[in-house]
């Protein structure tokens, strides 16, 4: 009966909320870490600072060429061979952060490269040193130009936290899975509910990010975004 199903689903919400909190935690922490690393790596490659820029190149290629699931499994299963453990949640955080950093490095590099040379010349002509110029003229523009790409990355990371289920992290997806095992007669409904929750979150986050994007958008140019 529909009413009964809805009632049962309703009772699952607290547990799902618990999973959702882990999802948020993972998303936000790994994004922040990845952004910091991404900005640094973006600058290293855009300004061609040898030999680090080469390492960044290799890092980008490797972390974008290996599936996130494999990264998770490596971080969780391989360390014991070397004598230490990374617990599930940290492994998930690390995996998400490392991978996202590779994509963000690309985003920031694209943003840096799309700033016209004239901006640098104008800053120099006022007598700005390299440091001041980067700080006051380049970086503010880079950050604004990166917002669309970054927003895209946000939702990607948010959705990919679901993969952490494979190493036992109790985020939203896993909670749903656990509930499905307990209530095997309404499996479809449970996962539809989980899907709905994700959808609402992603939708809301996108709306907020669009708003921010509009506020800070610099009329003039945009940077191409890759998935």
């Amino acid at each position, binding site marked *: 009966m529909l009413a009964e199903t809805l009632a049962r689903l309703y009772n699952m919400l607290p547990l799902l909320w618990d999973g959702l909190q882990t999802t948020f935690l993972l998303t936000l922490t790994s994004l922040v870490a990845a952004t910091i690393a991404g900005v640094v790596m973006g600058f290293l490659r855009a300004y061609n600072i040898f030999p680090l820029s080469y390492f960044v190149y290799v890092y980008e290629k490797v972390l974008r060429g290996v599936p996130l699931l494999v990264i998770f499994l490596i971080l969780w299963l391989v360390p014991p061979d070397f004598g230490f453990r990374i617990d599930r949640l940290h492994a998930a955080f690390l995996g998400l952060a490392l991978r996202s950093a590779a994509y963000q490095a690309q985003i920031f590099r694209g943003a840096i490269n799309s700033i*016209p040379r*004239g*901006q640098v*010349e*104008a*800053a*120099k*002509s*006022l*007598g*700005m*040193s390299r440091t*001041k110029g980067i700080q*006051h*003229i380049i970086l*503010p*523009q880079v950050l*604004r130009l990166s917002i669309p790409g970054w927003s895209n990355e946000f939702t990607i990371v948010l959705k990919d936290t679901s993969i952490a289920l494979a190493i036992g992290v109790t985020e939203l997806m896993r909670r749903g899975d656990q509930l499905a095992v307990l209530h095997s007669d309404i499996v479809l409904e449970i996962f539809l509910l989980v899907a709905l929750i994700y959808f609402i979150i992603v939708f809301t986050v996108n709306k907020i990010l669009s708003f921010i994007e509009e506020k800070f958008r*610099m*009329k*003039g140019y945009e940077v191409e975004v890759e998935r």
Partner: protein
Amino acid sequence: MTMLEVKNIHKAFGELQVLRGVSLDLDKGETKVLIGPSGTGKSTLLRCINQLTPPDKGEVWLDGVEITDKSVDINKYRQEIGFVFQHFNLFNHLTALKNVSIGLEKVKGIEKEEARERALEELKRVGLSDKANQYPAELSGGQKQRVGIARALAMDPKVMLFDEPTSALDPELIGEVLEVMKSLAGEISMLVVTHEMGFASSVANEIIFLENGVVVEKGSPKKFFENPDKDRTKQFLSKIATLYGDSGDR
């Protein structure tokens, strides 16, 4: 007194020798105009002066100091050379006001409020005080360029360099920029690269004709337009007259 001395500048880009020993000087309050066919190094010369493009050979002296000397901190002297770009190069993330005040605040270390007031004055001087809070994308080409001039002037430079300031503008917007530049003539030393012969003839103390990386001729506007020495100069001027319909007559 001589504000700017440019001595024997050479510059090559790869195989291409763009400047082959160009010299000129600028006294205080003088306005000199550089003309010549496109691609002959006029812009490059300006860029060599404030070292946006460092020259291969030659010296640049600003108010008695050799700024091409390696030991000199070029950033310090760039503050004293105002540069106005063909494509404006306004800082896109800043308002017109901030564009003008940022050099004062961050390079000269002036207090925020004081810098702001000074910037407003400069904007007023170029006739744009009502646009202070607009962003570059909201301004017309002529307005952008005037902000660019205000930004350069705010630093109290000893010399102003103008790199084809009106070449990127729609015809009806050229006038407002030339007006501002005319108002500066005499007050501040200016070196202008331009195709605007009307401006050159009415404002310049001297016109310098540059071709193939060397100075072909220099002289007062009157001499230059009415009775140039070199044939090459005559050829060039007649071409310009056809193009711009302006033979330099007042």
